[in-house]
């Protein structure tokens, strides 16, 4: 049992280090790319295969793919983290309010949430991003708009479970203010589960945002965003495969790391046992 616990922490630490490395790569992109810009084009160097000068080759406009992939981490990570932060805060807040107060507030929030769930998420995100105009900011809003419901439903059910517990009732009888009860008893009860959910969601949010950008509803040229880069490389799949391989690999690795990080965090926090 002790050994299992130690392994759990080792796995978590390994993926936490990997995630930190990815974040550091994004932060120190200019250093890693040795000053190469992800948007500066050298038109005459179009579609050069990977070599010692351009590690990941160049794209149709002669831009360095390595620089674009590394800088791409900035957009991808910041957008994905922004989405997760928005849906975590919004979903948790609405879920706690619905679960604690019940009645009309519960009915309104949850029916609205049911309405959102009844649409296919990606299609609704495409509609929202399409109506509000294509940009990474609108893609973040669109994905947030369709993804908060999971957190609200989770938070609501967790709160509903303890809402009528003796210690909560005791706090009410003792005259505790609602704000105190919400922050002192309700929030701590839902946080571990929701934090784990948020950690595992980073990967899927990266995929959703990359999907929107791939379809032209997210990042716009010349932004170095992985989904957009995949779309730009698609026509060259047969002749310049590096245009799809490296951004694809970047998405694969980052999503893998964040998914494993979420899973190992769940093991560490032992949410299932709770």
């Amino acid at each position: 049992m002790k050994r299992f616990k130690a392994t759990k922490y080792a796995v978590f630490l390994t993926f936490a280090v990997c995630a930190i490395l990815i974040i550091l790569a994004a932060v120190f992109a200019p250093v890693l790319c040795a000053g190469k810009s992800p948007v500066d084009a050298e038109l005459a160097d179009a579609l050069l295969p990977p070599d010692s000068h351009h590690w990941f080759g160049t794209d149709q406009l002669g831009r360095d793919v390595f620089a674009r992939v590394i800088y791409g981490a900035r957009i991808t990570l910041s957008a994905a983290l922004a989405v997760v932060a928005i849906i975590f805060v919004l979903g948790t807040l609405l879920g706690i309010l619905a679960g604690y107060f019940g009645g009309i507030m519960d009915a309104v929030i949850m029916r609205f949430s049911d309405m959102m769930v009844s649409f296919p998420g990606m299609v609704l995100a495409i509609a929202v991003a399409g109506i509000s105009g294509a940009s990474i900011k609108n893609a973040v809003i669109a994905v947030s708009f369709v993804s908060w419901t999971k957190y609200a439903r989770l938070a609501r059910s967790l709160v509903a479970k303890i809402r009528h517990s003796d210690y909560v009732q005791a706090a009410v009888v003792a005259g505790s203010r609602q704000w105190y009860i919400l922050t002192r008893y309700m929030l701590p009860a839902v946080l571990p589960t929701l934090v784990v959910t948020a950690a595992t969601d980073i990967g899927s949010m990266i995929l959703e945002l990359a999907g929107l950008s791939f379809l032209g509803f997210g990042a716009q040229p010349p932004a170095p965003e992985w989904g957009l880069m995949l779309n730009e490389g698609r026509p060259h799949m047969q002749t310049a495969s590096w245009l799809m391989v490296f951004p694809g690999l970047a998405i694969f690795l980052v999503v893998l790391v964040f998914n494993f990080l979420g899973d190992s965090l769940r093991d560490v926090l032992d949410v299932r046992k709770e």
Partner: protein
Amino acid sequence: MKKRFMSIVTALAISASFITGCSKGDKVDSTMQSSENGGKQILKFGCFDYVDSIDPGNMINAAWNCTRFGVGECLFRFNDAMEAEPCLCDTYEVSSDHKTWTFHIRDGVKFSNGEDVTAQKVADCYERLFACEGSSTPEKFLDCASMAADDASGSLTIKTNTAYPDLRKNLAYPVFAVLDVENTKNFDEGAIGTGPYAVTEFEAAVGVDFKANQYYWNGEVPFDGMELKFINDSSAKTMALQSGQVDLVENITEVSDLNTLKEDKSYDVTTANGVRCGFTSINQDGLLKNDALRQAVLMAVDTDTLCNVTLGGLYTPGFSVLPSNLNYHYDELNNPYAYDVEKAKQLLDTAGIVDSDGDGIRELDGTPVKLNYITYDNRGLATLAEGVQHLLKEIGIDTAIHTTDGDTLWNLTVSGEYDLSSGNWTTVGTGDPQEYLANWYSKGTANYCNYKNEKYDELYEKLLTEMDEAGRTALIAEMQQILIDDAAVLVHGYYNSSMCSSKKVKGAVIHTADYYWITTEIKPAE
């Protein structure tokens, strides 16, 4: 242990089936297809679905489908020099005022249902065309005063309100494809024409089946039928050709795909200098009203590299609005704004358009020069826009690219909500650029770029009444030079159309006029 072994075997089997599924195992053999079709020779053609209609009265793209698919033919057809050649009409006469035109309908021509093509049938077809409520606007090409058919002599006399230098060219435009109005039940999906192929089944957004026209007047139809598949994605079209799903595809617009096919000896690729001009409209109702700024924009763009390297030869670079392969004195035109970055920077500095706040972007009257560039993903235009964006940044001009669809781009262009707008337009749709040049005529309704030059307007008005071919050519050359001198438009080059085929067919060529894809020139390989 046994359990583990079984799971490994199962996993391997699943992986193998996935890999097999991803392979090119669906390659279709043409001989197999032939036996399935009772030994018939069927041409399999993949093309873009511009519109699900072949009715010339519906819209321009539908009219183009009608002649491109080999269903309809006009009284005349364009040769590769964009001259009108006899087709359903063999001889014609024109009055001295160019307002009365008499066309003799070729004897022995039949529709694909066996009905004779008579002068009256042609008149009926044109009358229906003018009565149609579609957007084909036949009146733009033929300002008809009256029409009289005489079946005894086989002639059709058309009197026009406007004098036309050469009405044959207008009547060679696909909108005037001759159809059997009396017997056609469904014009959109089953128009009956005189071309080598006739529609048997039309499935919107999927494809069209054709049979050979057994009554075809102009020689034997080489295939027994044709299966047309609508494939909108250029790469998918390439892969369909590679996998054997189709034998022939038109206009591969991705350079990588085109080069893949060119380098593979299993395919024939023909390209032709078309009559389309790829350009970026400059809206002069905005920042680009400034002459120096416009001139600098033109000088900052390395058209040669964009066309030859970035787009791998998809366009032939050029600087005038009319293609260099047409007979409008391109060689005699002078371009004062050839690619020269340093000169562009100097020009901006001299004009006081400088970067005063050090953010890398110049300011014009205190406003940062940030241009709204609208484009759409068609024939490499979006890539060209990105290339231009990068080149303009070199001289301190910022651009925000908005990639949209063709319809939205057109609406934004018409409403003037742009600084730069991508386009790829047919220049001599009716064998003459008069209509196209109206885009810069300030008194016309087609001038969406707010360009104004009195001399240009005057020459354009002269062009409307000039009947002599040499006189028209001289006027058109002069008008081109004015547009160049005024830095009125950022021309990239002239689009090269392409036709790619497998070795199962021969004779697949692309013509200068973009109206003839399926012809009797395309035959089964021996």
